[in-house]
């Protein structure tokens, strides 16, 4: 047997930069209670408990901690949406990481579960949340085990449960397992799932479950990485946090870079000051595209984001700038594709994902994503029709009307359409399926056309029929 046992999953790569959420990853036993306590564990919680709850909230607001789940909404602002005087209030932790390309929350849960628990405790203290539900994706068995062990230890040691550290702060943290559904990552679907229902998003408004959430009560839903930042902010102060990163996106973020790079990995990166080029080609990061190949395109923020191309390499990893350029940083998932990648095939694979994961609640998404997938499948199989490219765009327009966010196309003199897209659906899943389609058709239309029409003008489908024994003579 060649593969040596390691006590944690691979993926994280230390790039020598500042560390907030991965500070313990250098230790092989980073997930243990002993290591946690020996490396500043619960210092943030103690600092918080020494302050008034509203001052803790103020620290997080001042830090401008942006949500790490996808939408990038400031956590401190979201925390402020709980209506006055309505009790009880709940915290739901979104650990249902399943956006294609995203690999960070699983690492945080497996390798530093106590840090996440500490973040949950601080949030509950600040906002008067009396119970926290830690919703971990069903498929992540090891993360479930590590969190269960960590919770059992933290309860016994008096950090969770009644009268935390002898104060009058009491909170239960409940570990909850999901059961396999991408859409449950949408916060209102997550709440439906937690109530024991099918995980379908709720109609908006209210736009934030902070108003009406779990059991109809005020509920804060935060991503795992977002909460993992909170202990550091409380231990070191909002001002120190703001010293890292850029003005509008302070701190660091985890980026998972996968695909055709030499050293794929999860990197903790200072926001705003690092560019995509640094990340793909830097010696301390991915070290370039795999040998003998060159970059064709990349997905900057998970499967739901519009795709970028070589001219976007110098954009900083910063939410605002990436948004203005026509895409999003989303969940910090970057998928790099070199020139060997078939744009039609890659597009089909992304769309197939959305077609499979559509919950079926809104017709434009339920019907539209399946039709997009069917049309792309027939183009791939050589049965495409000349009208199929326009048809794809038209189906997409029914889910997301008007100009869809796209990256600038310098060669055609076309400007970027900024993120986010408009939608005819309750949640962004359907509109997300349009991202790969508009991105690839706008840039690689010839790849679609060459699969539909041969260079001699004969439709590929007709040529197929002529050569096929079944179609001959019909």
């Amino acid at each position: 047997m060649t593969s040596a046992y390691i006590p944690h999953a691979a993926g994280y790569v230390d790039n020598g930069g500042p560390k907030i959420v991965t500070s313990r990853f250098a230790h092989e036993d980073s997930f243990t209670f002993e290591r946690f306590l020996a490396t500043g564990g619960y210092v943030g919680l103690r600092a918080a408990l020494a302050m008034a709850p509203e001052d803790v909230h103020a620290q997080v607001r001042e830090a401008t901690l942006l949500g790490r789940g996808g939408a990038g909404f400031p956590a401190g602002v979201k925390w402020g949406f709980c209506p006055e005087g309505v009790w009880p209030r709940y915290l739901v932790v979104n650990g249902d990481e399943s956006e294609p390309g995203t690999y960070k929350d699983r690492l945080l849960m497996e390798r530093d579960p106590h840090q996440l628990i500490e973040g949950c405790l601080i949030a509950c203290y600040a906002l008067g949340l009396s119970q926290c539900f830690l919703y971990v994706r069903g498929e992540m068995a090891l993360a479930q085990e590590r969190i269960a062990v960590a919770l059992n230890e933290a309860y016994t040691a008096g950090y969770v449960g009644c009268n935390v550290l002898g104060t009058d702060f009491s909170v239960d943290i409940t570990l909850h397992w999901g059961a396999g559904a991408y859409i449950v990552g949408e916060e209102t679907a997550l709440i439906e799932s937690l109530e024991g229902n099918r995980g379908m998003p709720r109609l908006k408004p209210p736009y934030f479950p902070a108003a009406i959430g779990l059991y109809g009560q005020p509920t804060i839903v935060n991503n795992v990485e977002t909460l993992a930042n909170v202990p550091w902010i409380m231990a070191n102060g909002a001002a120190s946090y703001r010293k890292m990163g850029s003005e509008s996106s302070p701190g660091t973020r985890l980026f998972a870079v996968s695909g055709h790079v030499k050293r794929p990995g999860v990197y903790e990166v200072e926001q705003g000051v690092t560019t995509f080029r640094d990340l793909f080609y830097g010696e301390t990061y991915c070290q370039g595209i795999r040998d003998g190949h060159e970059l064709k395109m990349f997905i900057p923020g998970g499967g739901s984001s519009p795709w970028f191309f070589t001219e976007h390499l110098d954009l900083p990893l910063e939410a605002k700038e990436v948004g203005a350029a026509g895409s999003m940083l989303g969940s910090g998932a970057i998928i790099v594709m070199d020139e060997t990648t078939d744009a039609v095939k890659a597009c089909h694979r992304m769309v197939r994902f959305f077609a499979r994961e559509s919950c079926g609640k809104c017709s434009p998404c339920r019907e539209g994503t399946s039709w997009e997938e069917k049309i792309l499948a027939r183009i791939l199989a050589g049965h495409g029709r000349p009208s199929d490219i326009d048809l794809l765009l038209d189906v997409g327009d029914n889910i997301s009307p008007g100009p869809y966010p796209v990256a600038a196309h310098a060669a055609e003199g076309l400007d970027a359409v900024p993120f986010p897209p408009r939608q005819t659906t309750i949640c962004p899943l359907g509109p997300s399926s349009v991202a790969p389609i508009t991105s690839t058709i706008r840039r690689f239309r010839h790849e679609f056309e060459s699969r539909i029409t041969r260079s001699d003008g004969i439709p590929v489908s007709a040529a197929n029929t002529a050569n096929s024994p079944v179609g001959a003579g019909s």
Partner: protein
Amino acid sequence: MSWFDAANERTAREILSHYPRPKSAVIPLLHLAQEQEGWVTPQAMSEIAAMTGTTAAEVLGTGSFYEMFKFHPVGKYIVNICTNISCQLLGGEDLLNHAESTLDVRAGGTTDDGLFTVEDVECVAACTEAPCFTVNYRYFHRANAETFDEVVADIRAGRSPLERGAAGDIGELPEHGTLGRIRQHVPDDRRAGVVPPEEVNGAPAWMPEPVVEEAL
């Protein structure tokens, strides 16, 4: 007499005690039923309905939304091969083809000996370690046909393949249905207290009373 065995019956009661409303326990209890039987039987759904104050139809309605619940017998080992974009770029589809031809089963099917069920799945959050597959939700990173064959041979020979995954999992590979082998357990004297929301009156103890501003 509960459908759950004695140990699982106790686990089920503890699960129920964690939720302010019993229906929230439907998904965890479906997992528990699957842990006991390997799949979700009609009897299990009736039992869960009785425990959560719902109907068997509601339990099925919820459960059938989620991919991990199986309403028919499946293999002892569910092999999930990711073919989503990051894995596709590095050979996830080849790995799936290899698995299908080696085990002589199409994705979604179970081998004749009832040992393996192969599934073509969406992103499992191991994208930088692509291509990747899981067996009973335990990860195998940077896999290829050879890794796959070794894992299958291990299982057929009664050995645990977990350390081949290089994903931090050790020990025995549990049969399908068991997820986390360690569960949350809260000692009674440490509980903050879970009550239905309608029984909560006013702010929690540590929250200061809101300052009521004098009307001018």
